[in-house]
């Protein structure tokens, strides 16, 4: 059984920080289908539309009937571990630094045979296991076999932890801790075992309800942070930037109007100043240190979370300028993702539907509750995905968008003004 981990010792500041290494990232284009699904937290394999054969590794044609009509379909991942090994030697630095490393050969109930990372709690072959797809530190899909049934401290498995960004024993910055979502995030992270949560506060004099309780948590330190102020961002980065393992940017400026409803650009500029330039300021000041700490021991820098909006995918006219600012942030986050990739730091984009807060007051339900959204973000950190669509509305938009983006655009244009 996985033993509960002990808190890693404090880092010796004299020792050189290890440079990040990554698992091999090269894949054929067809294999990126596995990565595309894993990015959304799903394990999908190619299924032949003509004969139903499920196959792995990914191919250009069906291995049974040669049809090129292959669909990626969600798999339950259930199967039998038929053989295992423990690598003591690897030609790749990433694994050399992490030896020994357990691997399994699993016969999936759906047919294919897969090589997968093997969780320490999986029994010796023959044993039932569940195979999952996670993004690895290189940002590519990797398969992982978990024991048939959950075990205590399962999330603390060494190989699993290399595929997740678990907040346990890590230091986290939440950029806006005063909103209901921010408070729920700080509490959720403290509950998940984070060592320290820096709670960003833009306007120290504001005392929203519930904030005193958050402030009193032993893991929490309030830090001044106004994303519209370049100098303030730089100062905070100078103070804590070298220790942030996970950064969650939930700062958000949201006004609901389109183009015709208002004169001038002041409100839109204010949205951009937080939602887009705020992210840019943060990235410029905090990303370099995180990039340098991608391999900094068992509690290295691991994740950057952007709370975007499902409106980033396709403009929602009643919230038109807000949608535009989130689309801009989405584009910028892809740039950040590329720049953090060499360090193995994962950029997780969260695309909630309307949050149940004051700025969506006039939107009809369903709306996602801040506490639920915060819980989904903590779950995402413990999982292996990089694009997260919490709540029913976000899932619905995503499916429509994936199915036909033009149809979604028309549907959103036709929605009644609130």
């Amino acid at each position: 059984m996985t033993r509960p981990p002990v808190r890693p010792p404090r880092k010796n500041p004299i020792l050189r920080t290890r440079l990040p290494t990554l698992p091999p990232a090269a894949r054929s284009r067809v294999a990126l289908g596995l990565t595309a699904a894993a990015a959304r937290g799903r394990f999908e394999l190619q299924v032949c539309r003509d004969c139903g054969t499920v196959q792995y590794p990914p191919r250009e044609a069906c291995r049974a009937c040669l049809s090129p009509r292959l669909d990626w379909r969600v798999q339950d991942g259930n199967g039998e571990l038929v053989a295992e090994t423990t690598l003591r030697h690897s030609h790749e630095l990433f694994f050399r630094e992490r030896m020994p490393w357990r691997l399994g050969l699993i016969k999936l109930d759906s047919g294919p045979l897969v090589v997968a990372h093997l969780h320490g709690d999986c029994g010796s072959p023959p044993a039932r296991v569940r195979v999952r797809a996670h993004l690895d530190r290189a940002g590519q899909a990797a398969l992982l076999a978990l024991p048939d049934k959950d075990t205590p401290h399962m999330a603390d498995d060494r190989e699993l932890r290399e595929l997740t960004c678990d907040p346990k024993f890590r230091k986290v910055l939440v950029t806006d801790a005063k909103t209901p979502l921010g408070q729920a995030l700080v509490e959720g992270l403290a509950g998940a075992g984070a060592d320290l949560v820096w709670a960003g506060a833009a306007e120290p004099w504001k005392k929203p309800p519930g904030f005193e309780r958050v402030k009193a948590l032993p893991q929490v330190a309030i830090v001044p942070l106004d994303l519209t102020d370049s100098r303030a961002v730089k100062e905070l980065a100078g103070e804590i930037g070298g220790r942030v393992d996970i950064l969650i940017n939930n700062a958000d400026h949201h006004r609901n109007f389109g183009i015709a409803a208002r004169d001038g650009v002041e409100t839109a500029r204010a949205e951009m100043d937080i939602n887009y330039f705020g992210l840019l300021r943060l990235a410029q000041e905090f990303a370099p240190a995180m990039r340098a700490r991608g391999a900094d021991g068992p509690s290295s820098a691991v994740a950057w979370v952007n709370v975007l909006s499902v409106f980033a995918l396709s403009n929602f006219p009643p919230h038109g300028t807000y949608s535009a600012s989130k689309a801009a942030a989405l584009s910028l986050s892809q740039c950040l993702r590329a720049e953090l990739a060499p360090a193995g730091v994962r950029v997780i984009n969260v695309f909630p539907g309307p949050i149940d807060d004051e700025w969506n007051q006039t939107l009809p339900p369903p709306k996602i509750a801040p506490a639920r959204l915060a819980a989904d973000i903590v779950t995402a950190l413990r999982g292996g995905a990089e694009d997260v669509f919490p709540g029913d509305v976000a899932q619905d938009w995503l499916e429509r968008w994936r199915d036909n983006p033009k149809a979604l655009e028309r549907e959103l244009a036709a929605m009644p003004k609130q």
Partner: protein
Amino acid sequence: MTRSRAAYDDVVVAVPVTVPYVRYSIRGAHWFLAAALAALIKRAGLGKDQIDGLCVSSFTLAPDTAVGLTQHLGLTLRWLDHIPMGGACGIVALRRAARAVQSGDAEMVACIAGDTNHTHSFRLNLATFSQFARDAVYPYGAGGANASFAFLTAYYMRVYGATREDFGKLCVAQRANALQFPHALMKKPLTLDAYLNARLIADPLRLYDCVMPCAGAEAFLVLRRAAAEELGLPYARILATIERHNAFPDDPVQYRGGWALDRDELYAQAGVGPKDIDVLAAYDDYPVITLMQLEDLGFCDKGGGPDFVRRESFTAAGSFPLNTSGGQLSVGQAGAAGGFLGLVEIIRQVTRKPLGAAVDNARLGLASGFGMINYDRGLCSGAAILAADQ
């Protein structure tokens, strides 16, 4: 009714060549292949222009193929083949070349296989070995065939009761053979104790279960019997051959190879049975695959490998002479030349010209090949039975 395959008539194989192996080399693959060809024509007493057919196997020849090699080595040929089949390339080269000579498409086919080994080339080859390896094995830290053979060794041990001692007995015997073979890279005796306690590589595989990658080359010449006699070359007759690719694709773990499908045909074409074989060269990149060949080639039943190993002895002077040059496990694995090593040794034994230990009265030899861990298993298998001249 299946049509019976044509015999190889008076096509023979001669001039076994080994270019001495080195652990690392700064030379390119072309250097080793050139050295093999030079030794071959010198020993055959031929001019380069008398070679009209060439069959090439190499992993490190890129960006060249056999075509580039013709210009590189100044050869004008009327028959050319390139066989990228790793451990099965020797058997397959023999099959292709024999039919070319038999049909008259070529008269003298030089079959050469070799590779260089730079300090980094092994790693680079692993990373680009196959699409499936790149997509579904290499990202897991598994270097080349080690993890795949660890899986199938563990499976074979669990299902058929093989022990580490069984594998060790084979490795120790092969090392004893290698001590008499001048080109073996391993020059010290191996004890069972040292085998059992060697450094772990990928459980249950330890150091002496794995071949040492190196640089080197092997070659042989396929020609008509009359031509061989005219040149005064000792030769072996080709009684039968088989090859198979991607056999038993639905076995969950590889516990048998293509030989199991084709061995009846092999022995029927040769007109002999397993008991008639005097010396066996089994493909031995890991000892478990030798046990599988003992079973699949009919020397014992499926699952009988461990008992067979416990019962027999495997040095050149033993009850069952096996890998008498030392095999890849003790000679080294010079890339594609590993697919030739066993066949070249069988030619030497049945022509009574071994470089190392001789098998008494070796009349019939069987060479077996196995290659290409494309994903989770070896895809190519083959075998050939060679006979001494009457």
